[in-house]
């Protein structure tokens, strides 16, 4: 491939071809998902819809990775969804009943005598 290093591959996160090449040379990344996590290509607002195919081609041509080896992991939401749209259906879901920290009723180590039944154990989950 003769394309220059400063060619922008992921425009959402401004990841250049040079950065992807460097990642392939200097790390153990072998799949598009690994390259994504090390370079941020595909982590921006379009979540790889624009650049995923290009990154796959780069892996094939620069690294010998066969196309289709491992696709970009696609997760919902498949396009950006405002928080209030997500929240609108909250009451309709019977599962889950609450966060893991509230559902678990065990008494934490060293809190004998400490009545934190209301609180998630350890306060807010990080």
């Amino acid at each position, binding site marked *: 491939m003769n394309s220059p290093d400063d060619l922008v591959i992921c425009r959402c996160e401004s990841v250049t071809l040079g950065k992807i090449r460097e990642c392939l*040379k*200097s*790390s*153990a*990344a*072998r*799949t598009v*998902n*690994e390259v994504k*996590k*090390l370079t941020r290509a595909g*982590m*921006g*607002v379009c*979540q790889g819809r624009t650049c995923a195919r290009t990154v796959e081609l780069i892996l094939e041509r620069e*690294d*010998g*990775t*066969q196309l289709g080896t491992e696709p970009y*992991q696609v*997760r*919902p*939401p498949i396009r*950006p*969804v*405002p*928080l*209030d749209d*997500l*929240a*609108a259906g*909250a009451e*309709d*879901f*019977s*599962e*889950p009943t609450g*966060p*893991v*920290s*509230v*559902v*678990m009723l*065990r*008494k*934490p*180590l*060293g*809190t*004998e005598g400490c009545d*934190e039944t*209301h*609180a*998630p*154990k*350890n*306060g*807010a*989950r*990080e």
Partner: protein
Amino acid sequence: MKRMPRKTGQENEAMKSTEVVVVGAGIVGASTAYFLAKAGLNVALIDCRGVTGSGGASQACAGGVRHQGRVPIEMPLALYAIPFWKILEEELETDLHYRREGMTIVTDEENLVPRIEERVANEQLLGLDIRMVYGEDLRRLIPGISPRMLAGSYCPIDGHADPLRTVNALVSAAQRRGAVVKWCCKAQCLVKENGRIVAVNTSNGKIRCSQVVLSAGAWSRALAATVGVTLPFEPFTLQMMVTRRCPHVLGQVLGWLGHGISLKQVPSGGFVIGGGWPGHGDLATGKTALMPGSMAKSAFTTIALFPSLSKRSVIRAWAGIEAFSMDEMQVTGPISGVDGLFIAAGFSGHGFAIGPGVGSLIADFITTGRLSELLSPFNLDRFGSSGTEGKRNAE
């Protein structure tokens, strides 16, 4: 599949023996491998996944670095471990996006205010810089917080960092210091002879060693069982969301007592939303799937806490499997009857902030033989004799 030969720091031939094998390259394993390599030991860090891991707790971590809200018995460890973050970026020569602008846990319920006040008083006694903030002061401290919030516990030295950058940086720094890192190398069983560890059997062959640090999160339980050690862990899948980049309006980490939310805005501009909401996960494959109800309820909670976010869009949700122990506290320590085995797992969703510090203490133990008092409350034998299903001492 055709592949061109890779010239990286990773050894391609099977590794035969080393001093210490660290199983699991999450925050605890990567930290431990780094500090062991720094101390000059021969270390192999192995992980069944590829270079950026998937499915484990560290990759579904909200990145909070907090002292407050920890179980009191863990506060000394937190007060020791969290200051590591001040020097970590320089030590690892990488920007970890660490920010220390404070965390506030709030409540909108009058009858819960004394509960927070009591925790703050206890934490002050333990030496933490933390204070209560009420009403208008709270709104001035955190512009944008819901006006229904009445009071909160504000710790100015709490903060957050980027888990992905941090784990990657620890692994790279460990390699620069001489640690050998083996990806896609699945530990299958631990091997002991005459009551001491002699090797780890892996998918890439047997690695002979004299020490094993078992920091494989939810996968530690099965591995410990291969040498007759019972870890009272259950796997829970935790789910996260992130929004698209927004103008910076929030410097603190926010929590809301009794509600599942951990809200922060990261340096690149997105809001990272955690809070312990469950997803679906399969321990055997490491694969996770999202629970839509968690996304909806988490979104609902976020807007109730910080209303100006209602129109901000979520671009991604993801999940990872964490090991929760029976008392929601980690197991750290050597195991009597299995010399050379050190367990460091079961951090139950609160291992990230203390991970680097814990790794340093584990390295100290392995090099000196002396276990820090900071780790001793978390010994496995608090559950009853190791090797049997635990009786909880706290029951």
